[in-house]
């Protein structure tokens, strides 16, 4: 067994997490190995010093305050929109779906035909200009130019 493997065993021995057979091996090794005895001693000191670290003092009535805060925070969450979480989540889902639907529909909405498209469909120029002028808000520069040229 290498020295490192032995120290691994010693570490478990320090914690009392070792079977009787291995414990015997460790104790025999410790009789002759100064370095490992030092390891046991230092590990013990590390434990002692960690345990000796000052404990954090929480204020009096900490648990009462936390319990009160937790319940209050939960109630505030429930009170959002005055409805229970299930109803609230359903509401949010429906609202999101409506918004998405609105944008998708808006994107897919066919734009009003331009003069060139109406002309290309075989109608005469005047009719095309009239149709376009019926939607003045949607006139493009090209439409205006074509309307002037057609007239």
């Amino acid at each position: 067994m290498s020295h490192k493997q032995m120290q691994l065993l010693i570490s478990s021995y320090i914690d009392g997490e070792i079977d009787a057979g291995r414990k015997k091996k460790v104790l025999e090794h410790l009789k002759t190995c100064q370095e490992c005895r030092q390891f046991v001693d230092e590990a013990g000191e590390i434990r002692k010093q960690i345990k000796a670290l000052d404990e954090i003092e929480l204020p009096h009535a900490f648990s009462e305050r936390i319990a009160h805060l937790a319940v209050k925070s939960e109630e505030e969450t429930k009170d959002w929109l005055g409805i229970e979480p299930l109803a609230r989540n359903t509401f949010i889902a429906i609202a999101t779906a409506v918004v998405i639907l609105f944008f998708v529909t808006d994107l897919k909405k066919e734009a009003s035909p331009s003069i060139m498209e109406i002309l290309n469909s075989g109608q005469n120029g005047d009719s095309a200009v009239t149709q376009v002028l019926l939607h003045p808000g949607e006139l493009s520069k090209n439409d205006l130019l074509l309307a002037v040229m057609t007239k």
Partner: protein
Amino acid sequence: MQTDKIVTDDYKLIRSIQAGDHQAFELLVRRYQRQIANLVYLTIGNSDDVEDITQEVFIRVYRSLPKFKFDASFFSWLYRITMNLCIDEIRKKKIRRVFSLDYLTEDTLEKNRKDKEHSTAFDDLMKEEKQKVVQSALQQLKPEHREILVLREYQDLSYDEIAETLGLRLEAVKSRIFRARKEMKNLLNEYFKERS
């Protein structure tokens, strides 16, 4: 540390909380508040934020308890919540490891002693300095080494409990504890020299 009785008591308390008993939650907080506060302190190495983080831990616990299904022990679940919040805090504040092992040198001790000799007994000062050294070394450990050493040496968890809490195999627990001790020993080298 976690006896069968505690586990049973936790089970009863949690069932009561899940049934809407607020008083039971207060009892649960009282049972674990000291352990969690110290865990937070040893993890972040800064006592100023301990109370706030501990508070946040229990508020999260309260919110999540309705979903708790006893797949793991309550402590290991509580521990995970605590560690996640500590990690967030460390990232948020980018807590710097400001401690130095120079605390151990005679010059520093002497200077501090002179500064405080009228207000603090020398023994108290030595104890305080020792604590700073140990806390400093803990903060300099690799996070996984600090975590396991705190669970073993401070919280007194058995290897089985550590394995469950950290989701590790038993062999991994043994070797990680060993490596953590080695690292801690190296960091405290000066301390051990002074001691001998």
